[in-house]
């Protein structure tokens, strides 16, 4: 039982973490609450489905292509719809909601409300300390951890990562230091969407695709970033695992109430916020103090 909880919690947590980090990044850098974030995640999943099912691509080709395509698309969307109204916070919010709706409806028109699936990359399962885990789940865990590590390397060790972090910390000073804030924001949008797309690519063989699959992860992701502290990468990471383990614990401890797993996880978030209003690792932003 404990093994089950640990393994399932780790897998779900890693996927949540990938989503939350991307969201945190764009919020930190550009102060955009990007509701369409998980819509990009869904879009990547559908791109892979199309590449695999209709174009006969190998999944290993389809996946990187989809991730790239989503990144480019996100930048285009950003340039067209969000950048011109950046100063109007409420308008940006609605623009991202409307964008998510557009993506959802476009997929609904294209594929209908059917449930679709992509077969796993590798078949079979392994038994780890008595728990059956599919190879696909293990692969997902590995890729997710690698992607997380990659994101960390990118943020900590590259020049662009430094620029992102600097802008996230203080936009005005970063601008004064000669960083092109607008360009950094645009790139961040692309990068965060690509991280979401990687998460989408990871879940494609595991989950069922339908045009509403962005809703549940969206809510969990928002809860995670609030729990961890907005704009904090470490917070998103820790928050993701807390939420995932909360969900898994509910399933195992109260099987009759496993439909409540989302509610319980969200309640935990609220309890944490009652004690620490800025989240676990939140930084009080200059203008919001």
């Amino acid at each position: 039982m404990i093994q089950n909880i640990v393994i399932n919690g780790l897998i779900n947590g890693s996927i949540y973490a990938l989503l939350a980090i991307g969201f945190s990044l764009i919020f930190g850098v550009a102060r955009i609450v990007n509701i369409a974030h998980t819509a990009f995640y869904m879009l990547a999943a559908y791109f892979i489905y199309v590449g695999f099912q209709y174009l006969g691509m190998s999944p290993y080709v389809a996946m990187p292509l989809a991730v790239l395509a989503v990144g480019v698309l996100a930048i285009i969307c950003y340039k067209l719809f969000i950048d011109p109204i950046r100063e109007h916070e409420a308008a940006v919010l609605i623009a991202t909601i409307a964008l998510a709706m557009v993506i959802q409806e476009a997929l609904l028109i294209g594929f209908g409300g059917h449930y679709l699936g992509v077969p796993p990359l590798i078949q079979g399962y392994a038994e780890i300390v008595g728990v059956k885990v599919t190879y696909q789940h293990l692969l997902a865990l590995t890729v997710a951890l690698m992607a997380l590590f990659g994101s960390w390397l990118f943020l900590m060790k590259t020049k662009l990562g430094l620029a992102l972090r600097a802008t996230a910390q203080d936009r005005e000073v970063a601008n004064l230091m000669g960083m092109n804030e607008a360009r950094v924001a645009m790139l961040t949008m692309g990068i965060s969407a690509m991280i979401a797309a990687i998460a989408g690519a990871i879940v494609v063989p595991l989950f069922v695709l339908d045009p509403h699959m962005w809703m549940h992860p969206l809510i969990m992701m928002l809860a995670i970033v609030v729990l961890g502290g907005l704009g904090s990468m470490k917070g998103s990471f820790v928050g993701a695992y807390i939420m995932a383990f909360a969900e898994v614990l509910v399933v195992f401890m109260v099987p009759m109430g496993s439909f409540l797993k989302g509610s319980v996880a969200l309640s935990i978030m609220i309890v944490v916020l009652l004690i620490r209003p800025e989240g676990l690792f939140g930084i009080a932003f200059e203008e919001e103090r």
Partner: protein
Amino acid sequence: MKKRHMVWSILAVFWFVVSICFPAWAADEIKIGVIGPMQFTQGEGHWNGATLAAEEINKKGGVQMGNASLPIKLIKVDSNEFLSVPDATNAIELAISRHNVHFLVGGFRTEAVLVMQDIAMDNKKIFIGCGAAHPKLCERVKEDYDTYKYWFRVTPINSRFLVKVDFILLGMVAKIMAKQLNIPKIKVAIVAEKAVWADPIVGIAQKNLPKMGMEVVGVWRPSPVATDVTAELSAIQQSGANIIFTTFSSSVGITFAKQWGELKVPAAAVGINVEAQKDGFWAATGGKGNYTLTINTYARVKITDATIAFFDTYRKRFKEAPNYTAGTYEAVHILADAIEKADSLDPDKIVPMMEKTDRMGTAGRLVFDETHDVTWGPRYVTAVGTQWQNGKNMCVWPLNWEGITYEGTVPYVIPPWVVDAYKK
């Protein structure tokens, strides 16, 4: 010259007045509103079934009324009921007051159908449900006959009978497993999505299974839209269950079957899994849903003489097996028959004729009971059990049940990995 103008205009005015005063006379076609979530499989089923029936009737020259024969015209009404219930009510109101539909068929999400039912009843429109299984929809007919008599249900069977069939299927599989694998006492894990319609099934299962000589090892209630049930599956395997008794109507059915097959959980999956009724199930689970057994409305076996022909036409035309929302096919036919018998479009005259319906339909012999619900039982509509066997959804029940076997039914197959797990 002037005189002729006068005559013409008087005639025109007269015609205008008459057509306003007696709208029923002026009807030159019968309008049937097909209401459902048209962007989703359920709504497509509604529309496809009705289309087939309307085309058949129109090919024969339409519905005979008096000495005229009226063609049927279908009107597609997108209720969007999954996403917005007010939208559904607006759609039905639009169909009634703008498109002037005479009759309505369809409906899926119970929360929305309850409201749409009220609107249809207020307007005295006959509304034939093909999708929502909740008993309450038909109980209303009994409680307040004068208001709700315009409601009928064709598919699916009432959830009370659904449960009955459910247990018959479970009993059948349990018997086969006990015999073939020498299991003295069958252990059952109950997995039902968290929804009201599933609650009574869980309750009855917990009460009845011990009586049927089985042991309940646990109850799991995932969300209907859960995207991952590996946690539940690990727990089920730990509990040592031999059979998983499923109750799913949403996407979780696919998730469950996919992960069940992938993890080769050594327990047979039996019960309701609406997604497994569709042809797309095989692709959606990547073949991992093999050996899933579910209750179904249609199967390509000889339920009645009409079944196989209907099934083949439907599949050829729409590239999909009919599922229970395609019951609109029956609904339109029943309606056409009742109109011919009543010789009128007046709903109050049609309702008694509808009540007398006795039709060898595509899903069995269709007779309405006193609550205007489809009658269940041997030699009526029985529903069928279908199991996915290597890419084909085969009918496995009824097989010698109450003396009934539909031609083309095959025996149930225990998943090989379950056999392996117990043969060791």
